[in-house]
């Protein structure tokens, strides 16, 4: 009797991974420039404000930040899984379709224009990043479908060309920024998680989780779509509809993640591969597990980023790139014999 992935089996794996994520989040929330003790945190809020500062820092500052990191990590890892599947390309990541350059351009425009208004508790940078990312993705999609019949190749080409063009514009605009503007922009471009208003956090959480759930519902079709559109049609899957839904939802959760945390590289590329090496390529399992592991990875990376040169903070993108590479190589060395395309 062959072994199948059952819902029960998957739920057990998700619960175990989620428990690990919860522990990682709690431990990371205890670590920081200001030392806080677990005992004080467990003691509760006390009689009033200021009585138990450890608890207040833990609940009011650290927990929202680790939740933010977990959400951004989950969204980027899921978007990586989806884009690698629909582009049938193991090298695809959430930024390959122009999301990074679009969001970056949005941020620079926000900084240059000196806009200070805020929209629904989000800073202009967050709003402009989201708008830039979303608009660029639709531009890439539109050009990709104008260009030719082989939509996957056209999409990739359109993404690469627009990325290159917008990156050049970003470099030009960065060179004319004033020094105080330059710092915030550069930090954002390198990936920077900062505390956000709770309402932004919760709405982002709902949007990202809903996006991931939507993607989960098409995972069995994505499995088939990785064989190409002829095979997908033969197995009853409409390639155009599935690709559109997958692309739209992946772009949506990436745009939210990018607007919250800046451009964090490597998570969307490496986490899907790492999870695939250990758990296999079935997207019904790959997507939820990647979301959790991606979240945990970014929580740890962010903790390192805010503590390693304390009291200063490093952009988290630096840590993900430095730590992600060797981490992936270790996995590769251990599991590569199981994976044909790595040979």
């Amino acid at each position, binding site marked *: *009797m*062959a*072994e*199948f*992935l*059952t*819902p029960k089996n998957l739920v057990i794996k998700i619960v175990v991974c989620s428990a690990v994520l919860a522990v990682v989040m709690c431990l990371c929330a205890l670590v920081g420039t200001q030392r806080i003790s677990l005992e004080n945190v467990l003691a509760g809020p006390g009689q009033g404000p200021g009585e138990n500062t450890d608890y207040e820092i833990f609940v009011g500052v650290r927990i929202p930040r680790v939740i933010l990191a977990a959400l951004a990590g989950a969204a980027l890892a899921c978007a990586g899984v989806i884009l690698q*599947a629909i582009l*049938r*390309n*193991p090298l695809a990541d959430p930024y390959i379709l122009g999301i990074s350059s679009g969001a970056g351009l949005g941020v620079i425009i926000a900084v240059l224009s000196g806009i200070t208004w805020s929209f629904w508790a989000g800073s202009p940078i967050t709003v402009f990043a989201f708008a830039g990312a979303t608009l660029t993705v639709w531009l890439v999609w539109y050009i990709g479908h104008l260009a030719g019949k082989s939509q996957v190749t056209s999409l990739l080409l359109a993404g690469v060309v627009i990325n290159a063009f917008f990156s050049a514009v970003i470099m030009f605009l960065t060179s004319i920024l004033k020094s105080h503007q330059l710092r915030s922009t550069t930090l954002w471009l390198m990936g920077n998680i900062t505390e956000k208003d709770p309402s932004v956090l919760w709405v982002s959480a709902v949007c990202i989780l809903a996006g991931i759930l939507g993607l*989960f*519902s098409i*995972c*069995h*079709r994505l*499995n*088939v779509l*990785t*064989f190409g559109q*002829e*095979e997908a*049609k*033969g*197995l*009853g*899957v*409409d390639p155009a509809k599935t690709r559109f839904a997958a692309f739209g939802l992946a772009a949506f959760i990436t745009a939210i993640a990018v607007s919250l945390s800046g451009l964090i590289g490597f998570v969307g590329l490496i986490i899907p591969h790492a999870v*695939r090496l250990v758990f*296999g*390529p*079935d997207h*019904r399992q790959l997507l939820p597990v990647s979301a959790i592991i991606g979240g945990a990875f970014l929580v740890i990376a962010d903790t390192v980023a805010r503590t390693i040169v304390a009291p200063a903070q490093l952009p988290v993108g630096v840590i993900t790139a430095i730590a992600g590479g060797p981490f992936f190589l270790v996995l590769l060395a251990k599991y590569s014999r*199981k*994976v*044909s*395309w790595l040979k």
Partner: protein
Amino acid sequence: MSGIIEVENLSFSYSQRVILKTLSFEVTSGTFLAIAGPNGAGKTTLLNLLCGLLKADAGHIKINSSNITSYPIKKLAQIVAVVRQEFVPVFDFTVTEMVSMARTPYLGTFGFESNADKEIINEALETTDTLQFASRPLAQLSAGERQRVFIARALAQNTAVLLLDEPTSFLDLKHQVGIYDLLKAAQLEKGKTIVAVTHDINLAAQYCDEVLLLGGLADYHIGKTKDVFSPRQIEKIFGVSTFAGKVGEEKFFIPLGKFAKDSKHITSKPSNGQ
């Protein structure tokens, strides 16, 4: 008796190049039909038209008496399964995962297989003798084993019609015969209608009931294999002289070029295009 597949006045061209012209034939349910012909005669194109991947310029194809274009993609995949020429997937799916995907047209919202689905998958793995490497990635199998997995997938799709594009290319003699035995068993035991594009006229003669010989454009012949396959016909369609012999009911053909050792024994002489 009306056919499970009915093709009427079918024409198809790629931009300016006409591939098929006013082609008509019918396949009765439970028949094993071979589509043979030289390269570029439109065999694979016809197969792609029969599974709804391409749309005809003129004429129509009916499956179960309904026009193929009237079927939603999912519904058509419950009636017609396709085995294309062998390929290695981008990601390392195991044999079980691969065969399980055959159930995609029957799955619900989150796409998990029911117990009935699992039984069908297991049966397909057992029938094709692929259960022994069910947990291995497809890329680790030999070409013959991989082709058996693709046939297992098509069987697990549980369709009345099975279309195959050169199922034995790249396989050695033992595996070629093994694949045709599998297909014949599916026809005889499950009553499947099988349409296979093939270059091997001898295997087609031994295993198929009927053959559609495509010679390009409106030049085609369909009928019982023993009627359609003749040295003259093969020489006309393929432009190759053959030695024809007979074992039992069916003829066999050995293609012989002018430098072949036994070319003096050829049954059909080159006719200089006449």
